[in-house]
């Protein structure tokens, strides 16, 4: 039993400003503290095959019991005591909960404080819908009526669509016109489905608590809105600032949220990553907001490979993996595990990594390298031929635009990190067979002055 904190502590910080855990540019990492997803993520980092998410474990010994996760909870972590995701209310405890158990605390800190206090007072927990506030109940009635109306509309829209389907194209004015009409009707139906649930307080509560189901359109919609409000703006800005768009792709409209992490370290988009850290492949978290499973290809490109002989720059491909399934509730793309898996299996059909990870490196004194990781959706979820990619694509001088065009891919998400010469770079280069490049240092080129400004012997 967690010790009961003094109640004054809860009001010492502004509740309205509380954000779960701030990791990416101030934006909360989770869309809705999806505790199940967080637990799953923990599993994928510790074991090669993702097992089904286990029931919520509140005891510190639970991860140790897991046969596939041999990671033992350290002694100092055990001293933290029991941490209940429903009741942690100190920032420190929240941090510890995420660190030790990999679970996000639910909802807001205010809610958790209330839950903890009612539990301490052994008071009865009233279900959310039955809260005894008159105004709340009256408002609920209005919202329920509105929902009924929307449900009725959905029903009629469905029958309309059925009718249109059965209709002869000649009657509806040609095949093209019929399809256009069908599409717009379907769009309207999707809109209605979201409108039916958008005002539901229970939906809002579940979304805030992270108990929402990403297979339902309303939660996908809410998560998308949340992403677009902050994180996507940052991504857009980075794409523009780092010139990813004219340099690597002609146009790009990100529709999936991509998080990058090397081991346990989350990397905000565009950050410098130590070369020793980036020696091993990272772990991606690709959150899509569209229905259904997708097959994606993940490509990492270095956009700043110098060619000193020609005094210009080129591109280099560091990694290609294809046929990776992702879905709204299936977000983890552990590149390191994919690579291990591909090494183990002899069958080319089962392999996913076409070009294995080569550690990012930069010469001493050279300007930084932009390492862009693109998530590209495969057309119609068709699997690509790995051996063909392996045969056709070369690492040096890799042009992402032409690769995207040839494979009929659609870019949906991007993340970026940067690399430059650091202390551990020498070791990384030696380990990756670049021993002769270690001693090469880049220095600024002297620019010849204009002829009439050149200093001659006579002038001296």
């Amino acid at each position: 039993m967690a010790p009961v904190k003094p109640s004054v502590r809860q009001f010492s910080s502004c509740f309205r400003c509380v954000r779960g855990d701030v990791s990416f540019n101030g934006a909360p990492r989770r869309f809705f503290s999806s505790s199940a997803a967080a637990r799953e993520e923990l599993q994928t980092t510790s074991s090669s095959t993702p097992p089904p998410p286990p029931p919520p474990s509140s005891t510190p010994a639970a991860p140790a019991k897991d046969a596939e996760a041999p990671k033992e909870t350290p002694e100092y972590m055990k001293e933290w005591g029991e941490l209940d995701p429903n009741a942690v209310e100190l920032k420190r405890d929240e941090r510890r909960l995420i660190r030790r158990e990999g679970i996000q605390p639910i909802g807001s800190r205010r809610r958790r404080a209330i839950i903890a206090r009612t539990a301490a007072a052994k008071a009865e927990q009233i279900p959310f819908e039955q809260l005894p506030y008159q105004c709340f109940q009256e408002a609920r009635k209005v919202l329920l009526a509105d929902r009924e109306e929307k449900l009725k509309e959905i029903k009629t829209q469905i029958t309309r669509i059925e009718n249109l389907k059965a209709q002869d194209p000649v009657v509806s004015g040609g095949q093209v016109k019929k399809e256009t009409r069908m599409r717009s009707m379907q769009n309207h139906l999707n809109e209605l489905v979201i409108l039916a649930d958008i005002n539901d307080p229970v939906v809002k509560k579940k979304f805030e608590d992270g108990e929402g189901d990403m297979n339902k359109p309303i939660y996908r919609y809410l998560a998308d809105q949340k992403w677009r409000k902050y994180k996507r703006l940052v991504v857009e800005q980075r794409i523009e600032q780092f010139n990813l768009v004219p340099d690597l792709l002609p146009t790009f409209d990100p529709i999936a949220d991509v998080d990058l992490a090397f081991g346990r370290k989350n990397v905000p988009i565009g950050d410098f990553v130590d070369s020793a850290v980036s020696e091993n492949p990272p772990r991606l978290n690709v959150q899509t907001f569209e229905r259904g499973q997708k097959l994606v290809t993940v490509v990492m490109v270095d956009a700043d490979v110098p060619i000193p002989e020609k005094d210009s720059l080129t591109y280099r491909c560091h990694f290609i993996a294809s046929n990776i399934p992702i879905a709204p509730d299936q977000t983890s793309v552990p590149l390191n595990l994919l690579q291990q898996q591909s090494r183990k299996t002899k069958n080319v059909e089962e392999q996913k990594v076409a070009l294995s990870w080569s550690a990012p490196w930069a010469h001493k004194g050279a300007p930084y390298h932009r390492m862009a990781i693109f998530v590209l959706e495969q057309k119609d979820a068709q699997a690509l031929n790995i051996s063909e990619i392996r045969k056709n694509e070369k690492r040096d001088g890799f042009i992402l635009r032409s690769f995207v065009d040839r494979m009929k891919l659609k870019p949906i998400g991007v993340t970026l990190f940067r690399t430059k010469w650091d202390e551990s770079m020498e070791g990384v280069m030696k380990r990756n067979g670049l021993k002769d490049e270690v001693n090469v240092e880049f220095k600024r080129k002297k620019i010849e002055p204009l002829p009439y400004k050149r200093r001659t012997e006579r002038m001296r």
Partner: protein
Amino acid sequence: MLLPRILAPVRAAAKSPLIPSSRVLDVIRHANGSAAHAPSPTLSFVRHATHQAQGRANGAKDGPGKRLGAKKAGGEYVIPGNIIFRQRGTAWFPGENCKFGRDHCIFATESGYVRYYKDPSLHPKRQYIGVALEKTDKLPYPQNAARRRRLGFVAVQNEPQPKKIEGQAVVADLQVGDAPGSETSIRATVRDSQTLTIGKGYAYRAANWDIGRVAERANVQVKQFVPGDRWAAWQKSQARKKRNEEAKKLRNAGKKSAKPKARKRRGP
């Protein structure tokens, strides 16, 4: 405007006791113009300036020219920092590989060939000055094409730590100055140290961290400082005072006699 000072003579007339009052009326009548046919000699006018006496009416027009305009023609070769265009305001905007100076002059940031152009996709009305990297290039570059960039760096092959050997040779030179074979402090320090770096100018020297380790290597034992130990502090200060006194005595030993008063003033 010409304003007759009508009341001045009236006032004068009223003030003087010698003039009879009938004369006052006359003066008023004159001033009111009733006797226009006979202008009074006492009426006076003030003439104000209606026109500026000197200088030009609408500001100076013939100041020195500011030598504005194009400094480099289209197609001319420029290097970074060259000013291409001088202007007041922004008649021209900096395009590819160009920047604004502090007075809106446009200068090159890359070496290349000057281009004067318009880019409707960027701005429908602005005219730009850019620098094309290649002589054959045209500006603006096609939209959404990869940027054309120049590396601007050269690759230099670095020898793996050649300085160390040279540095030791220099130290050997230093040793020549001393008596050969004698253990000088310099030699002892340098022989142990592993890194000799070149200083700002020409001299090779041990790194600062290396110098900091000298005492440790020589096994110098320093008495532990205990804060608040007044006894040790008093002893130390007494020893210092005694030492100073003796040093002073030695300094003054050569002198025949010092002035007692002056010494008193100087002493503690």
